[in-house]
């Protein structure tokens, strides 16, 4: 450590874990130069956790890759330098970098399945790290591998060593990846969306693990994520990246309670706060879209989308000013006096290292707290949407079993529920709980084995192919993946035209109806000529929504319609769904793993666990005690943005049991923190009525459960 070079003007004696100075990175694609990072400067002290946030395409991952000299072949570092632990990587040979990376840096990527070799046993993969980097023998390295698996709290490390990756759950795989990352005692741990794609409860476990490990390892952390709640939980400092520029930087606590850049403020406002409902407040969206890579921008990179932009903002780019301070305002005055000649503009970046604790790249930081709000349409009450007109949909004892070799997996087991006109029914539960299968049974994409689906008093045929065109028109679906929901070979207009032809209720020209649909979902007519590949994710999802509304449906099933989108786009899609519901009085079944989103958009919520619906009630009732212990655990696992909310984590024990052999008695008893004893193991619990229309399946009666769940003492997990 003493041999490494000291950074030139570092105020501290010890070199920073990561010191990035004025970094400029350009990608070269199809003969064009696309600047991705523009003069990024940041510093992560030893042992510090730094969160890098921003929407996709802002350059977050590129920054990490450039820092580790991992840039793709078509990317070049044009200016600036990166010191990791005081070492300038660009001066090392390829071989030395590889060795050095292995010893000093560890990375954890989004998808654990692709980080592990599917053909190697876990033990061999983890042991390889020790064999390669420490030159240990076979037995010794296996022993160390066992130790490191124990460190990441994997149950039964001996058995895990012998398993292949596909035999582990996603959460367990990510634990193995983390174990491998920490095996070499790195000085810098880069986490690139480490929990995206994992269930909320698993995410919470991984976060617990990282938090717990931080106390024992001396690694600095660079956390790359779009999830502000994650940063709020793990990081001391945070940097906000927009279009390749660092726009705000400072202590996480200060930035989340008092953002000083309009983009940070916009990001915070577009996520539904926990407990918020569509009838209370509309989500604030960020107007416009992220500039395309390489698009020439004059002035502040955010000025085109900023609700408080003034003429000066598009004339000269603000520096990264210290906050609090009057530097921003001074810059604005200077800029006003400048001639409006782009040639006279020269970018210069304030260097935040060693200066003030907080910086924001905005002339008007002082006004950000009062940033004007937009007033999108607020949802009307359920009654106004037709909620008193009776049930639209009735699902009775629907079950569906799939065959997997010799195993029989029951994906949906005896689920019954009903839905009113204009109502949104939120369906939550971990992946594999049967949400999507249930939804597909309603639409007829999957035929249920037993049970009935009744729509407006008529029993529907099991498969879509046998249903009448009227029944198809009335029940439509919005799918999850914006990249496969639209046929890439068709133009957008052709997609909508076909939908109107097949589903349209007659009257008026097809062309006029298509134009109206696209106007309703706010897609500009020029995009109708394009193919889906030329549209952004948000636009694709809007077209998919327009397609579902082509026949004026009564019920639309939304299967994670916004989870693949960035938060600001997600907000606008949610607002759109709310607005369409208000205007068209349509009912929704809304599936999502994001509990805050479900709470926001739903009137009623159903919780699924292991193929069964275990709790149903109004959104407010389900999210407040007394509620099912599983719901309680789910809710406790979400990383929240508010610093002052007292959050008691309830860890779920073990992993989700197999659908082919569900546990006896209460299906949740193997993981329940409020288990009573043998009664839970042996007897199927009754549905208890907590309030009018709010029922949950548990042996504990509502008043006792309420007392337990409102007690200040955290519930201790009881061992069986």
């Amino acid at each position, binding site marked *: 450590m003493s041999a490494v070079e000291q950074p030139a003007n570092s105020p501290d004696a010890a070199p920073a874990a990561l010191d990035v100075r004025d970094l400029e990175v350009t990608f070269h694609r199809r003969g064009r130069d696309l600047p991705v990072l523009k003069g990024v400067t940041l510093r992560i002290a030893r042992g510090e956790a730094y969160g890098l946030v921003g929407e996709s395409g802002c350059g977050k991952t590129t920054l990490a890759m450039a820092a580790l000299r991992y840039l793709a072949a078509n990317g070049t570092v044009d200016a600036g330098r990166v010191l990791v632990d005081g070492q300038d990587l660009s001066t090392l040979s390829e071989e030395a970098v590889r060795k050095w990376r292995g010893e000093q840096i560890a990375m954890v990527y989004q998808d654990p399945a692709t980080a592990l070799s599917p053909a190697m046993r876990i033990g061999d993969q983890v042991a390889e790290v020790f064999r390669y980097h420490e030159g240990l023998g076979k037995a010794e390295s296996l022993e160390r591998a066992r130790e490191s698996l124990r460190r990441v709290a994997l149950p039964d490390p001996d058995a895990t060593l012998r398993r292949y990756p596909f035999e582990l759950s996603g959460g367990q795989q990510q634990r193995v990846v983390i174990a491998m990352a920490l095996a070499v005692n790195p000085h810098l741990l880069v986490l690139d969306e480490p929990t995206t794609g994992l269930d909320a409860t698993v995410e919470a476990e991984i976060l617990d693990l990282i938090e717990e490990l931080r106390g024992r390892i001396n690694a600095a952390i660079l956390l790359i994520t779009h999830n502000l709640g994650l940063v709020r939980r793990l990081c001391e400092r945070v940097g906000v990246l927009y279009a390749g520029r660092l726009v705000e930087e400072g202590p996480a606590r200060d930035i989340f309670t008092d953002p000083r850049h309009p983009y940070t403020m916009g990001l915070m406002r577009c996520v539904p706060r926990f407990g918020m409902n569509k009838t209370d407040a509309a989500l604030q969206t960020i107007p416009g879209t992220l500039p395309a890579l390489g698009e020439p921008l004059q002035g502040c990179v955010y000025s085109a989308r900023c609700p408080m932009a003034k003429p000066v903002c598009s004339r000269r780019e603000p520096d990264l000013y210290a906050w609090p301070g009057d530097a921003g305002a001074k810059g604005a005055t200077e800029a006003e006096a400048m001639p409006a000649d782009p040639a006279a503009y020269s970018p210069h970046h304030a260097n935040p290292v060693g200066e003030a604790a907080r910086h924001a790249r905005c002339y008007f930081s002082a006004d950000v707290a009062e940033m004007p709000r937009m007033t999108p349409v607020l949802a009307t009450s359920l009654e106004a949407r037709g909620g008193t007109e009776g049930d639209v949909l009735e699902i009775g004892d629907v079950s569906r079993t799939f065959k997997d070799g010799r195993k029989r997996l029951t994906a949906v087991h005896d689920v019954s529920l009903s839905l009113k006109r204009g109502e949104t029914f939120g369906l939550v539960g971990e992946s594999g709980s049967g949400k999507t299968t249930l939804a597909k049974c309603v639409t007829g994409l999957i035929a249920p084995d037993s049970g009935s689906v009744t729509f407006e008093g008529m029993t529907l045929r099991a498969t879509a192919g046998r249903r009448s065109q009227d029944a198809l028109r009335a029940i439509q679906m919005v799918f999850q993946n914006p990249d496969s929901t639209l046929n890439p070979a068709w133009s957008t207009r052709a997609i909508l035209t076909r939908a109107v032809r097949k589903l349209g209720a007659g009257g008026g020209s097809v062309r006029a109806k298509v134009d109206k649909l696209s106007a309703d979902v706010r897609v500009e007519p020029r995009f109708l000529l394009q193919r889906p590949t030329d549209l952004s994710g948000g636009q694709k999802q809007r077209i*998919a929504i327009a397609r579902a509304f082509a026949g004026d449906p009564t019920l639309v099933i939304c299967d994670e319609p916004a989870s693949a989108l960035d938060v600001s786009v997600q907000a606008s899609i949610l607002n759109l769904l709310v607005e369409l519901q208000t205007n068209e009085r349509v009912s929704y079944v809304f599936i999502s793993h994001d509990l805050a989103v479900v709470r926001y958009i739903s009137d009623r919520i159903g919780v699924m666990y292991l193929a069964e619906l275990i709790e149903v009630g109004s959104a407010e009732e389900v999210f407040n005690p007394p509620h099912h212990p599983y719901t309680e655990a789910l809710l406790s696992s979400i990383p929240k943005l508010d610093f002052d909310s007292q959050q008691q984590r309830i860890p779920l024990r073990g992993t989700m049991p197999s659908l082919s052999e569900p546990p006896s008695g209460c299906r949740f008893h193997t993981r329940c923190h409020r288990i009573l004893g043998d009664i839970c193991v042996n007897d199927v619990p009754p549905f208890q009525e907590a309030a009018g229309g709010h029922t949950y399946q548990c042996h504990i009666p509502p008043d006792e459960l309420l007392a337990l769940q409102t007690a200040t003492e955290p519930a201790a997990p009881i061992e069986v």
Partner: protein
Amino acid sequence: MATPQAAAAGPGEQQIQANAAAMLEQRRQRRYLVKALLRSPTFMTGFVIVLFWVFMALFSTFLTQSPTDIDAMAILQAPSAAHWFGTDDLGRDVLARTMAGARTVLVIAPLATILALLWGGIIGLVSGFYRGYTDEIIMRLVDVLLALPIIITSILVLSLLGKSVAIVIVVIGALFTPVVSRTIRAAVIGEREREYVMAARLRGERSAFVMAREILPNITQPIIVEGTIRLGYAVFTAATLSFLGFGLVPPSPDWGLTIATERIFLQIAPWTVLFPAAALATLVVGVNLITDGLSRVFSK
């Protein structure tokens, strides 16, 4: 777009400009594929070779001596200034015959390939789209057909049906159908689970519409690649069959036929066999290079 002119233009004009921009972008995408192919040395080499043989098939009679003119005074002459590739046992110019020999194979092979793509495409679409028992039955039948040795089967069928060129084309097309149907079935299975196919089902589309209009346009790339692979094999098979005496009769300059009739002179006049054999090899290599280039550009 944010230039003062655009801002000053009326909404109608803006609309037109935007439409034009959208169409330009689409054309740019398509042009990119073409450019990538033009820049691929593999594809271009293959393309030039195949283009050469197509050109020769069409125009060689204007450039060379007649491929069928017999010159009894010049039998089995070695390559010389008068006869660059020498002459054969009837004194015919080997250069003229080699160049003209491309004609038959370049008719038989592409037509057989098109037939195989058509039949294999339909079978693959149906099998991959319906899955279940339909798929099981069709694929087991395909397995049986794949187990047949191509040359022996075609000899048997041709002996039974006659030896005309048309029958050779149909037989090669039929024999390649099972392989093609497997490739297309795999591509269909990849597409049918996509959400746009589910959306089509929720719209009440007929299965034939979903197969032909929704899925087919999205599997053109694997179809094109499979087509060029089959084309290479079809050239090969056509030559083999005419070598064995099926499809073509003397005095056709067809390569396979020529190799068969001249092979008795291989010891004393090797040029009579080597030039048509080399021509055949270059055509097959050329087609394979095109296949390689296409699949590389597509997979990018």
